[in-house]
Every structure is written in C-alpha cells, then in structure tokens.
C-alpha cells in the first residue's frame, strides 16, 4: 500500500530525515518508535504533505501513485489520514460542517454521491457511540474548548467518519489518561481491518499494549536503525533507546 524509498527531508534547511525505507502492506500495523528529535513527527508531516517540510530526495508511492506529487487535500481524498499530535481549533465552524465538507469532498473525488443529511447524521451517531462521544459534539466548533484528551478522541472520530485507507497516528497517546487511551485504542482496533493499514508514531510503548503492531521500527537521527516484531517494543521499554543506539554504533564499527 505504502512504499517509502530513501526519503530525505529538511525542516528550516536542516536535514531531519536521512534516508527512510519502509514498506507497508494492506492489513498491516506498523509502529515507529524513537526518542525525541529522531524525526517521527517529520515523517508523519511529510507523508501528509505539510509544506513546512521540504523533501530533498526519495520517493513515496501510495497504491502505486506518487504521493509526494499530490497536495494535502488530494492525499486525503486518496485515502490518507493523519491523526495530529496537536489538533487545531477552528472557532465558528461546527464539527458537523467540517466533517460534512470533508466527507463530501472525498466522496466527490471518488465518484460517490454526497451523503443525504439522514445518512450523515446516522453515521455521526454510529461513530460517536464507538468512542463514547456525546451527540452534542457535532454542533460544537471544531476542537474549541476541548481538553487535550477530547481533541485526540476527536481525531479518531474524524478517522471513523472519513474511513481512510491508510492512517498515521502521530503521538496519539500523548496527553491521554488510561481511560481515554483505552477508548481511543478501541476506536482504532474496531476500524482496523484487512483492507486498511496503520503507521503508529509513538515515543512510548504504552500505546502498543492496546494497539498491537505487526512490525516495530526504531527511528534514530532520521534513519530506521532497527526493525522487528512487537516484542521489540517491549525490549525498548525495558532497556531504553540507549541500548539500541550503542548496539547500532557497534554494528557500524564492525
């Protein structure tokens, strides 16, 4: 589904990603772990098309199409979704307006008819229930007055509403208490199926107790330095990142 080859990217002229290679197949959940500053969020932003990040080399194919050539809205319509680390507040625009606009743009692109108001409302009710969200949420302005946890939950709500093929979760666990973490993870697990794929970016192993990855990659200084199964996450939790860095360093020396 997603094929990243030798991806390099700069932020403010400084190289942050230094050659990422990653293959994600349909039905898979990949986790990217790494210390602060390793480039995790940069990877998520580059894949989603944030203009503040400059791609200097490499290719990314999404279902065979050149992802880097698309603007952010086209990537979304193709089925990419980023759950933001810091969701934005939009006063004066209700969640309903926002989601309806987004959903209809995506459907139009894919030659699907717009949802009727009833279909739209039914979908909202269904998805809100999954996350234990109050129906009144839909008439509230997007993320305005939401706590950190509510904002994260709203990101997952948007994911459920828009039904993307490929989901990036950027530090979705940060700022969540254990109950919220459980609810959010539950939303992801319900949505997870053989036809979609996830890339979970996280600093801590905690989230991966709830969203079990098929593969874990360790990112350090802009490169994936180690890949493995979900047991790698546990190992990292136990020994910290230094263990890997040292080992990597030794490997390089050899």
């Amino acid at each position: 589904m997603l094929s990243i080859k030798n991806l390099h990217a700069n932020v403010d002229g400084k190289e942050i990603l230094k050659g990422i290679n990653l293959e994600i197949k349909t039905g898979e959940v990949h986790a990217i772990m790494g210390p602060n500053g390793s480039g995790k969020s940069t990877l998520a932003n580059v894949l989603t098309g944030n203009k503040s990040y400059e791609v200097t080399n490499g290719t990314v194919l999404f279902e065979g199409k050149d992802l880097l050539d698309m603007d952010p809205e086209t990537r979304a319509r193709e089925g990419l979704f980023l759950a933001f680390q810091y969701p934005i507040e939009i006063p004066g625009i209700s969640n309903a307006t926002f989601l309806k606009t987004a959903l209809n743009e995506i459907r139009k692109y894919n030659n699907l008819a717009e949802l009727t108001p009833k279909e739209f409302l039914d979908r909202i009710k269904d998805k809100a229930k999954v996350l234990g969200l109050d129906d009144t949420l839909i008439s509230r302005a997007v993320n305005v007055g939401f706590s950190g946890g509510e904002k994260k939950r709203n990101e997952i709500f948007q994911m459920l509403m828009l039904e993307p093929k490929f989901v990036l979760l950027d530090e979705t666990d940060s700022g969540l208490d254990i109950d919220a973490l459980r609810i959010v993870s539950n939303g992801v697990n319900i949505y997870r199926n053989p036809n979609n794929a996830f890339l979970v970016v996280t600093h801590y192993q905690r989230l991966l107790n709830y969203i079990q990855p098929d593969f874990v990659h360790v990112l350090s200084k802009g490169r994936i330095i180690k890949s493995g199964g979900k047991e790698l996450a546990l190992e990292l939790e136990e020994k910290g990142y230094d263990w890997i860095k040292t080992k990597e360093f030794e490997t390089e020396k050899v």
Partner: protein
Amino acid sequence: MSNIEHKSANEWYVSRFRTFEDKLNGQSKSFLHDIRKNALVNLAELSFPTNRNEEWKYTNVTPILKQNFIPAMISTFPKIKKEEIKQFLFKDFDYHLIVFVNGLFAEELSTIGNLPKGVIVGGLNRVTKNNPDSISKYINNLSKIDNAFNALNTAYSYDGLVVIVPEGMILEKPIQVLFLNTSKDDLVLSVPRNLIIAGKNSQVSVITNYRGYGNKTYFSNIITEVYVEENAIVDFYKIQNENDESFHIEKVQAIQKKNSVFNHYNINFGGAIVRNDINTLHDDQNIETHYYGLYLAHGKQHVDNHTFIDHAKPNCMSNELYKGILDDNSRGVFNGKIIVRKDAQKTNAYQQNKTILLSKTATIDTKPQLEIFADDVKCSHGATVGHLDDTSEFYIRSRGVPQELAKSMLIRAFANDVIDTIKIEPLKEQLNHMIFEHLHRVEIENKV
C-alpha cells in the same frame, strides 16, 4: 491636496443652503432651523480635515471633496419600490422596520407596526413637527461640531432616525433601520441625523443597516446621538455596506448615565472611503461599554474606525474588540482612544485590535491610544497584524478540503469572535454570508 479644493467644497455646500431652505416650508421656524443656521456659519468657517490633522492622518478625504454632491432634499434620485428593499433586509426574526432613502424617511416602505405606549420610532422631520418637546433638549446637545463634515450634516439636518424609549420600557423586538442610498443623475448627499434616547430602566436594540443600491456615487454623512439613561441597556448595531464608488462618514456620540450598558456592534463592508467615529462619555458610575467591530475590505476600499471611550467617572468598565480582514489593495485604519480621567478610579478598560491581511498589498495602520490619569485602574490593549495560519490551513486540507475552502473556514473562524457576540441569532448567519460574498470567497454554510 490643495486648500483650494477644500475651500470650494465649503463654498459649494454653503451655496446650496438657500435652495434647501426654500424647500422647508413651515419647518424653517422650528428649533431645528436655528441649529441649522448656526451650523451653516460653522460650515463656512471650518475646514474639512486634511492628513495634517492627527485624527485624519491616514484618511485622505480629497476624493469626497472633489465632487459636488447635492443634498438629498434638493436632489432627484430614483424612487424605490417596496419589493426592491427586501434584498437588503435582515430576516428570520421579528422587528419594527423603518426605512430611509438617502436619509429621508420613506413611510411607504416602512412597517413600524405597533409600539408600546410612549415609544417613538420615526423620522426626525415628523417628530420635530409632532413632538418637538421630546427631542429639543437632546438634539445637537451631545455632538460638538468639530469639523466641516459635522457642520455639513447639521446645517442640512432634516430627517433621520428618532427612537425614544420612555422610562421603564423594554422594547421586545429590535428596530431594524434600513438606510438605502442611491444616486442616478445627481450625486446625492445624504445626511441622516439620528437620535436615540433610552430612558431610565429601559432597554432597546437598534440595527442600523446602511446599504448602497446601484453603482453610482453618493455620499452619506451621518451624525448619531445616543442617550443611555440610568440603568438602561442599549444594543446598537451598525452594518454598513455601501457600493464601491461611494463615501460614508458617521460620527456616533453617546452619553451614559449610572449603571447603564451600551453595546455598539460595528460591521463594515466598506465603500470607497468609510470613516466611523464612535465616542462614548461615561457621565456617572458603574457603567459598562462594549465595542465590537469587524471591518472587511477588498479592491481599493478604505475603512477607518476611530473609537473613543471617555472614562470620566470611577467604577466603570469598557471592553473593545475590533477585528479586520483586508484583501487586495484595501486599506484599514484603527485608532482606539481611551481616556481614564483623574477621578475615574477603579476603571477597567480593555482593548484589542486584530487584523489579517489576505494579500501582500493590503495595509493596516493601527494605533491604540491610552491616556491614563488615575492611578488605581486596570487597562490593557493589544494590536496584532498577521496572515491566515499555515498550520491551521494544513490541518483542514489534510481532511480533503480544498485550499480555497480551507481559507474561507479560517476567515470565518477569525471573524467569529466578533460575530458570536451578536445577540440576534439569525443575524449572525446572515452576516457570515455577507462576509464571503464581500470577499468573493467560497462560502461555508454552518448547518447540520
């Protein structure tokens, strides 16, 4: 900028007075006519403001003075039919409707409806004839003539909005006032002279709605006096949308008595040159004043808002929020003056001005002007100028929303702080609609 042009403007307007006077018939014996004649003397003597005047530093009125406008009373202009005004009215709520065409009361277009006993809503000319005592002590008592524009309005004052709400009366429905401005062969000068008197313990909501009809040049030069008596609450809305060729100048002068509340909402959609002076004097204690402003301009429009709150007495508060969205080559000016006088201890005064520029060529001159002479006060002010936020735009686009629509959402989000303070719910959505129409941008309709 030459003095010759300015001089000739004074001469032109003075020279039209005789014809105007002949049109007054019996009205030339009223107290109002003495006011007019005194103002005519001022009109001959006072100069129109130039950029050398600090208060008019950023607004050049030469384009207004270059044209010889003819006062509405002695000019000809198209007659307006009832079905033509519908497009300009705010709808979906109950209101008393009073309509002025080029500043003159249009009874046939108005639907004032039933008013509670003692309430007066009408045209100044009619009220001067029928109830002179109700206004003679008030009119021209607050507003001082301090430049030739004020003198011009006062010398030709004839009609305008009069609202009188007696003691203890709460007017349930708002008063919607349509000032429709239009010109055809003559360049029309419209000089509404407005007076609002809210008696003790009374409450009233007035929506003044200044609209341009057609694309010919006209000039609206307005003075509005507002008396907010003890314990009274006045919500005063001004929505101004002249055509792009036309000029609009209004001076609002309000006075507030003990425990009163004055809320002024000022929504500007511009014109060729628009200038608002909004002045409030606190004449007693425990007074509250709120100024909310939103100015939008495109093309070559010029919108200047000068606000002033005179904290003359202790224990009062004022809160001001002015926001602007400027596109193309438009220009905005904001000057927020607050004086806290020596006696005005325990004053709370807050002011904020925020502008976003949608193009590289739009400009804003913003100046807070706080003069504080008391020592036990809380005052703050802030002014920011910026662009639409890239990160927010990215967030919205990452959901599949196209860039232009994402920008519209952010514009609406920016305007929301001001729009949301409006108390009449249907007015909010209609103003949002006007915002997008005005900025020629894709509209976001907020519905489920």
